[in-house]
């Protein structure tokens, strides 16, 4: 069965049709062509597909497209203000946290959600916020550096 899905993505009203069995990730990537959100494990384990859904970071691969009806969604495409990058985006570049970059959109979304809650995250806060985001390139050092740098910049400490 095909559904018409009216939703809000990055502040813009959008509409598309999807099967009842379609995941939100496939709807975003294949129907609406928001390709910044990445496909990887399709089982909710790796976090590459993380988006912000009604204020909460979620794995879009294990969420149904139908759940987008009436929802407010933020994807990686919605973070920058024109040419001005979001502080989290800029911090990932500045610390060298972007190697292959495939986990990066999901990571940045998870970190943005964290820093929206607190700009003074503890080590435990960080672990909890990104424990669902796997990075296979960095060994996590530079990602942690990026999170601290972004937090400091948002809070005006750097």
């Amino acid at each position, binding site marked *: 069965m095909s559904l018409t899905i009216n939703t809000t993505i990055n502040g813009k009203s959008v509409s598309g049709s999807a099967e009842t069995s379609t995941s939100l990730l496939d709807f975003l990537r294949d129907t609406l062509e928001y390709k910044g959100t990445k*496909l990887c494990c399709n089982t909710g384990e790796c976090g590459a597909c993380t988006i912000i859904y009604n204020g909460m970071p979620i794995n879009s691969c294990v969420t149904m497209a139908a759940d987008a009806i009436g929802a407010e969604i933020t994807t990686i495409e919605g973070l920058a203000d024109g040419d001005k990058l979001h502080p989290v985006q800029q911090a990932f570049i500045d610390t060298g946290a972007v190697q292959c970059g495939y986990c990066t959109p999901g990571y940045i979304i998870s970190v943005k959600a964290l820093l929206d809650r607190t700009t003074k995250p503890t080590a435990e806060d960080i672990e909890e916020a990104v424990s669902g985001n796997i990075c296979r390139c960095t060994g996590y050092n530079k990602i942690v550096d990026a999170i601290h740098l972004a937090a400091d910049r948002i809070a005006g400490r750097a």
Partner: protein
Amino acid sequence: MAKAEFKIIGTSPARMGGVERVVGKGVYGIDLMLKDQLHGAILRSQYAHAKVVSIDTSEAKKIPGVHTVVTAADAPNVRFGRSYFDRHILARDKVRFMGDPVAAVAAESPAIAKQALKKIKVVYEPLPVAIDPEEATKPEAPTLHEDMPLPKSIPADAKLKNICGHAVAHVGDAEKAMAEADVVVEEVYETKMIHPQYLEPRIAAAQMEPNGRLTVWANAQAPFPVRQETAKTLGLSLNNVRVISAGLGGGFGGKGSGITSGAAIEPICGLLAIKAKRPVMIVLDKAEETISTTIRAGAKMYIKTGVKKDGTIVARTGKVFYDAGGYSGFGVQAGGRCTNMLGGWYLMPNCHIDGYTVYTNKQVCGPVRGPGGPQAAFAVESHMDSIAAKLGMDPVEFRLKNTPKPGDKIVGVPKLRDVSLGETIRIAKEKIGWGKVKLEKNQGVGIATGSWIESAGPGGGAIVKVNEDGSVTVHIGKIDMGTIPGFGIPMIVAEELGVPVEDVTVVNVDTDASPWDAGTVGSRGILVSGTASRLAAIDARNQIFKMAASQLEASPDDLEIVDKQIRVKGTPAKAVALATIATNAHNVIGEVIGRGYFDNVAAVAEEKQHGSSQPFTAHACIVEVNPDTGNVKILKYVAVHDIGQPIHKAAVEGQIEGAAAMSIGQALCEQVVFDTNGRTMNPSFVDYLMPTINMMPRIETTLVSGYPGAGPYGAKGAGEIACVPPMAAIANAIYNATGVRIKTLPLSPENVLRALKEAGKA
């Protein structure tokens, strides 16, 4: 060039392509969408070993929306492979692992393609399976390849089978020296298969062009070998195949199509596109990936070492059984490296090791991050601690006692030029607080070292074009998966041409236009493309100076480029813009095009004369073992590396930390698990455990300087070596904490607890 003279080398500018990646506009293979594309899917064997009796595709072809179904009968009967031509792109007669491709379909949607796969009727005649590489060599084991001969070096009466590679590390008279040793330690170590688990799934897309050429899009690490393999298996000439590289979301040697008889998805996709007369794209499912693409193989290693009472090593003997999987793949090369490295990287006057790479009914061995090295190092460096314990000697002192000096030889390397091993050990010792740090109950400290050589192989070229505005476009044959094309290459070219690094663009590989290259593997990015790009930039600069010289009424030797201005040295007012010269070039030489290449023959000759300048490393860690659960927590981890002159410092650290993380994963949890029928028990990310941020310690990286390598400005490859020591460093720390030596990976809670119980310590 002295370090102080660098403007850009050794700094950490923003990665080329960084902005696209953080805003979600980075284009990876998986983001491609060809006009009118069909969706390809592959039917994979449900048996690890079976005869294919018949394949009936008639029902699948009848499904509306299915455009084509192909089997081996639709492709030329051509075998491919690296060491042996032992594989077809689609199984003919036999399947040799669960995941071996049998048929493929192209359909209007992924759902229809999946439905069609279910309608293909394959009749199999199951055969006994060979899972363990050592067991597979015995006469009673099933035969995997009836028509593949044993390597010539194996005696006919050896009663061995299923062997596709035989490597030896024979030095001096090991038997005699072993008999004269004061202390002999003999052990057996084993590592298991892990999957590189790059996050971006593998894809292939293909399209027949109206002129009869085949265009292939690949997220593969070696576009030129993909072209070679695709052309060969589909019966096309090389000029009729064009391979375009998409950005790669990780690779780690696992996306090595063309350099190993691995997944073969590019030729399969090409075959579908030819038959369907429509563009086709295949995207592998992650669980499908785990069972079908190339992996870091497991190895069983017998190791025996004789030492004198004072700690001098006098002899080593051993045997390696290295798992190739169903086809030779990269197994012969990796098994050979493992065999050599089992001889260690310390002074070793006598050595006798035989290594066998063995066909088993599992997925194929690839050149995954340090192929053969991490496995050997787990055995060698755990064994070093066992010997030290038996001697009653400190593990650090024992290693330092046997450390080679410049000019010495080690197993597999006739002569060393500089040797940073001792310094890396001493720094790791100090950073971890060896002998000083206060360890609590159940805590232990461990150290392990490693080395790696930038594997021998063909070179590769670079083309540097200076555009009429003074910006620069660079073509190399290496792909961007978070490695040098986005980090080091723009810096090298900017350094030589006196332009800002952001004015240099490195173009993605297109085999129609890029210089040939063997692939982004073997820690050779900086050595091959770094050297080639530097020489190409110098060539371009020479052309520029020649044209500017007459205009500035100076000798070309007296010129320099600073901030895109060509100036007379010492007289900065006498200058002309780089843009002016590059534009004027249109009237003189057409265009400023510098060309450079890495001369592998010269590099080998240089090494023969002056010795190997290979990198060394030492890692040390402190762990805490929970005796109730077997859980191992890493409390502190230091990684000390000599990688020569770092080009992009942050990128080098990132390579080291990421490589260490992969082997820490293999140490603590990663493993592809098989049942007795050869079925993978943990194909999805739900069951395949790998390190998340929770289990990773902060890796404290130290770069050692003063040991220049063979790369540009004295750089050495940094992508693989940090994979070498972690497993043994952690195993040694567990031994230090508990007194229990665990010789089979992973050091998972289950295995650690079992070992503690067997030793009566839990």
